[in-house]
C-alpha cells in the first residue's frame, strides 16, 4: 500500500506571513517514485467558481521507495486565511508522491491574528 504522511513540527498549523513551516515527510511506496512534491496551496470556496494556486512548491526527484525527509518553507505574504459567508480562503499543505501515487494534506491557517479572519457585517456587500 502506498502512503505518505506530513508531520508538522509541534503539530503547529497556524502561521503568520514570512514565518517558516517546518516538518517532516514520511512515505512508504511499492516502487521508487518519480518524485515527491510538497505544495502550499490556497483555494477559494464559496458561491463562485473555485480558484486555487500553489504558492510554494518543493520537489525531490527519484527518492527511495520508503524514506523520510525534513522540510522548511517560508509562508508567503498572502492571501490570508479568511472565512466569509460568500467566500472563504483556505490554505492546505499537500504532499504528493508521483507514480506510484499517494497524497496527504493538512489545513494551515495563515493569519496575523492567530486565527482566520472571519466574516463580520462589514463584508455584507450583496
Amino acid at each position: 500500500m502506498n502512503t505518505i504522511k506530513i508531520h508538522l513540527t509541534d503539530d503547529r498549523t497556524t502561521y503568520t506571513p514570512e514565518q517558516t513551516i517546518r516538518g517532516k515527510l514520511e512515505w512508504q511506496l511499492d516502487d521508487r517514485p518519480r518524485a515527491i512534491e510538497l505544495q502550499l496551496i490556497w483555494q477559494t470556496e464559496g458561491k463562485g467558481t473555485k480558484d486555487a494556486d500553489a504558492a510554494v512548491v518543493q520537489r525531490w526527484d527519484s527518492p527511495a521507495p520508503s524514506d523520510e525527509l525534513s522540510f522548511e518553507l517560508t509562508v508567503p505574504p498572502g492571501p490570508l486565511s479568511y472565512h466569509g459567508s460568500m467566500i472563504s480562503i483556505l490554505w492546505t499543505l499537500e504532499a504528493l508522491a508521483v507514480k506510484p501515487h499517494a497524497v496527504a494534506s493538512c489545513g494551515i491557517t495563515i493569519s496575523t491574528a492567530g486565527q482566520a479572519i472571519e466574516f463580520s457585517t462589514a463584508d455584507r456587500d450583496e
Partner: protein
Amino acid sequence: MNECPAHLNPFRASRIDALPYVPVDQSWDRMLTRLVQMNFRGAIVGPHGTGKTTLVQSLIPRLNERGFGVHHGHITEASPRLPKSWWCALNQCDEQTIIIIDGAERIHWWPWHRLLRLTANACGLLITAHEEGRLPTWIRTRVTTQVMLQLLNELEPHGMHDAAQLLARHHGNARSVLRECFGLKQRQRPA
C-alpha cells in the same frame, strides 16, 4: 460568526461542480450506444443550468475508460475564443480522440468550418449548445423534479426542500436553484 461560512456551506460551488450528471429517462449504456451509432458526432442541447457541462464532465472518464482520448475546449462569454494552444493541440489528435467543445454556438461561421475540417479525421466531435442545429442532437438535457430532489438531497441530506417549487421558480435551471440554496444556507448558523 453569525452566518454559515462559505467553506462549510453545503451548496458551495466546488460541491455543486462535483455532482455527477443524472440521466433522465435513459441509462448511461443507452446514451453511449446512441453516441456510437452517431459516430461520436453530436450535440448536447439544453437551456442554461440543465446539466450540459455536467454531462460532459461525467462523460469524459467513461470515454477514457473505453480507450478514447478527449480534447476538450470551453467557450464562454468571458473567453469567447478557443485559445491558439487548443487549435495547435488539435493537429496532434488521432483517430482515437474525441473533440468536445462546450459552448459551441459561440463559434463564428468561419472557425466552425475550420473546426469541422480539422476534426474530419478525429474519432468524434461533441458540442454543447443551447439550441439545436450545428450537429445532430445526441442528448437534450432537462431537469425533472425528481432529479432536482436527488441533487438537493445529495448536497444536504436532511434538508427540507420543495424541489418542484424551486425548479418552477427558476424555470428549470438547477444551477440557479442551487445558488438560491447557497444564499438561504448562508443566512443560517452552521450546525
